[in-house]
């Protein structure tokens, strides 16, 4: 456990990608094979089942250190991470000898614990804490609470593995995505050169684009580029292999069961195919707002009514595998024309080709972009016609060219301390618009201010608190911010009647007074135009 804990600490504290890569390589070169499989699993988002819930964990901790539960909560609020809070509260054990067991043993024991009585769980946890130092306790708690997000992308892990076992990084990326069970697979089965790819459901790692910052005319000759609408859905891959259909989301979740609309594709698609595209609700080949898609994802059982009102389609834009062959190294042009052929031949109502937008010069494309929102798109994807299909987020061949967000001016009325990174500052705010002489809260927004601005707002909050409800402070409505967002939908869970998509603070309007902010009526008009 100690090696793993040290790895996590190192990854969490190093600021340079190269240091992270080295730490991972060092680990993969030295660790136990069984542990390595779990490390790959954990860092690619597969964690063991939660055998003990967070409340139990917190309760064992406060009993052990004899602190009131409210004080635990205050501590948690400052730290922003439950696993770390507990590790900080437990009595020091730094000079104790290394008595902890290997990582995979703890994980196996945790798994076996699931059906045990509460008292046995508790004894196990207390004993484990006793065996560990601070870093080990932190990662052990993290295994239980989940959410191992420590600043290391899948790409870095893939590269570290590629360097340690001498295998091409795209092969590794492909093998570790998809369906495999860390408790049964061995390291060699997962990654060795000769291992057969037994899991035929696996999607390819997605090729992602950065937002273009410079002027698009800098991209060169428009003839070399292909423009597609950028859809606001869920990125996904439709795969058919061994006569079986799989639908994957970019979060590497297998979503086949969620979308019955796709099921009949298993009969009509050719075998040995992988199509990249967007999972999106659509009627008459036109996309519906993202908020509607969310009504489908959240449900376990889908009703007939939902299938009628929010039918899901797949807007296809790339072909990654055809006839069982990996096509990713072929130029986009070639992939595209084959894709068009396949989709025309398939002729399925839910499989739609995402159209190419013809243009002869960049000015023309800029004008076309103005109509994005009416078409339910959020701008363009610009792809070089000669581009191969790469792994991960890359610059150069593919770019996102999004439209400017919608904005509204609002006043801050509540503030709350941030979690994790900003755990000592008031950084989470709730904003309101005017409704006559009342203020109506309508959204929370987090990012978008500089550290210096956060410090200024934090100081304001501390001086101008009106009331305190738990961690939330009511603040004198004085600071005005511009809130940017990508979409708007009707919502009866919100008092304002609207819910925003990706709201964020775009700037601090020091030039505006609370009297000058937008009104609820303004929000409703935006809803009328963009939310229906």
């Amino acid at each position, binding site marked *: 456990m100690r090696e793993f804990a040290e790895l996590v600490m190192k990854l*969490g*504290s*190093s*600021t340079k990608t190269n240091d992270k890569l080295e730490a991972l390589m060092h680990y993969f070169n030295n660790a136990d094979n069984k542990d390595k499989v779990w490390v790959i699993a954990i860092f690619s988002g597969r964690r063991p089942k939660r055998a003990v819930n967070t409340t139990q964990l917190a309760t064992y901790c406060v009993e052990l*250190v004899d*602190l*009131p539960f*409210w*004080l635990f909560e*205050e*501590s948690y609020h*400052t*730290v*922003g*991470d439950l696993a*770390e*809070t507990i590790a*900080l*509260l437990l009595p*020091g054990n*730094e000079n104790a000898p290394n008595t902890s067991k290997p990582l995979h043993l703890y994980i196996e024991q945790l798994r076996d614990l699931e059906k045990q009585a509460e008292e046995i769980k508790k004894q196990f946890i207390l004993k484990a804490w006793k065996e560990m130092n601070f870093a080990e306790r932190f990662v052990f708690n993290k295994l239980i609470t989940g959410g191992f997000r420590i*600043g290391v992308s899948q790409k870095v892990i893939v590269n570290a593995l590629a360097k340690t076992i001498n295998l091409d990084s795209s092969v590794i990326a492909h093998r570790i995505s998809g369906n495999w069970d860390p408790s049964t697979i061995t390291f060699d089965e997962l990654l060795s050169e000769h291992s057969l790819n037994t899991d035929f459901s696996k999607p390819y790692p997605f090729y992602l684009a950065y937002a273009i910052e410079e002027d698009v005319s800098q991209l060169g000759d428009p003839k070399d580029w292909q423009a597609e609408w950028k859809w606001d859905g869920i990125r996904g891959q439709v795969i058919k292999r061994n006569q079986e259909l799989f639908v994957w989301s970019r979060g590497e979740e297998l979503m086949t069961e969620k979308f019955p609309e796709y099921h009949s594709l298993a009969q009509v698609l050719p075998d040995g195919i992988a199509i990249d595209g967007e999972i999106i609700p659509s009627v008459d080949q036109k996309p519906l707002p993202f908020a509607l898609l969310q009504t489908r994802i959240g449900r376990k059982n889908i009703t007939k009514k939902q299938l009628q009102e929010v039918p899901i389609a797949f807007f296809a834009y790339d072909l990654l595998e055809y006839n069982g062959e990996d096509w990713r190294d072929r130029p986009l042009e070639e992939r595209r024309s084959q894709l068009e052929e396949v989709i025309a031949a398939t002729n399925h109502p839910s499989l739609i080709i995402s159209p190419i937008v013809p243009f002869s010069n960049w000015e023309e494309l800029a004008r076309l972009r103005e109509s994005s929102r009416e078409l339910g798109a959020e701008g363009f994807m610009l792809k070089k016609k000669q581009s191969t299909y790469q792994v991960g987020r890359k610059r150069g061949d593919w770019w996102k060219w999004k439209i400017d967000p919608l904005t509204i001016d609002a006043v801050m009325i509540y503030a709350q301390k941030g*979690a*994790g*990174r*900003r*755990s*000592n500052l008031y950084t989470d705010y709730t904003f309101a618009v005017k409704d006559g002489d009342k203020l109506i809260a309508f959204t929370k927004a987090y990012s978008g201010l500089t550290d210096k601005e956060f410090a200024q707002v934090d100081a304001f909050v501390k001086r101008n608190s009106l009331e305190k409800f738990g961690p939330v402070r009511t603040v004198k409505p004085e600071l005005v911010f511009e809130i940017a967002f990508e979409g708007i939908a009707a919502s009866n869970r919100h008092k304002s009647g609207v819910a925003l998509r990706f709201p964020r603070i775009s700037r601090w309007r020091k030039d505006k007074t609370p009297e000058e902010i937008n009104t609820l009526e303004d929000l409703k008009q935006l809803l009328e135009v963009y939310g229906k």
Partner: protein
Amino acid sequence: MPLIEFTDKGLYCRAGDFYIDPWRPVDKAVITHAHSDHARWGNKYYLCHHDTRPILQQRLGPNTYQDIAWNEPVYMNGVRITLFPAGHIIGSSQVRIESNGEIWVVSGDYKIENDGISGQFEPVKCHSFITESTFGLPIYNWKPQTEIYTDVQNWIRKNQEVSKTSVLIAYSLGKAQRLLHPIAEVTDKIFVHGAVYNIHMALVNAGWKLPAVQRVTPETSKEELKGAVVIAPSSAEGSPWLRRFAPYEIGICSGWMQVRGNARRKNADAGFALSDHADWNGLLQACRETEAECIYATHGFQAVFTRYLNEHGINAKEVKTEYGDDELEPAELKLEED
């Protein structure tokens, strides 16, 4: 009328007609320590410990100062004032006030562990104790300083191996001096930022024996800086001033580094949870040892801390003051680019 009142200018002793660490200009100020949020500009008279005076003079210029030793009484209108070591920084003192048999103690900032230069914190029995609570949460429990020093030293050595400069961010008054001895065990190439240098020289001129440091100037050469240690205040973080040290690693010395997210947020290569304030157990111990009937908690986690004390049979109240968080350097000391 209580012996100390909480007014909008600061802690006021009406019977003696003086203030302690006032935040608005007053006629008579008793100063716990020379940090800028406790010792402010504009008072007509300053009473402080011998070791605080040279730093005050350096920071605030000519003024009327009176300096005394620990446990050396001064009387104002018959109110007896004595100072006791607070262990926070050089010269830092608790202020004990006695009038007609009633005793109050103002802690200023303090820490329990003896850092070798600030004096050993001394519990003082009193009826009312006004305490800071900067780290008044049980997640703040410091490692013994020798362990932290070892961590810092190992970090410097590791940087030296790859010819990198070790930039340590530390408060220019307090931690900068405290770090000198452990650093000097690893290297004699110690460079400091101008803000640290000014305080260093004020102390050296007052007779303090501290390991030698050199001020970073535009003439400081790349060669000299290889493998060296640089001590700079937090205002230097992320500033262009740091560029001259490349390649360098940056390590922040602050109690806030106890929480991982804070080190990450500052984009530091290393965080050392070294503090000049008492940790949770230190605060509790100090409050208990005063045997005070009432504890007043100021700057920090005062709401949490007072609630905990009250639940544990110690009468405590929250008080709002205008002292800052001096684990981070205040804006007043923003860099003069040299």
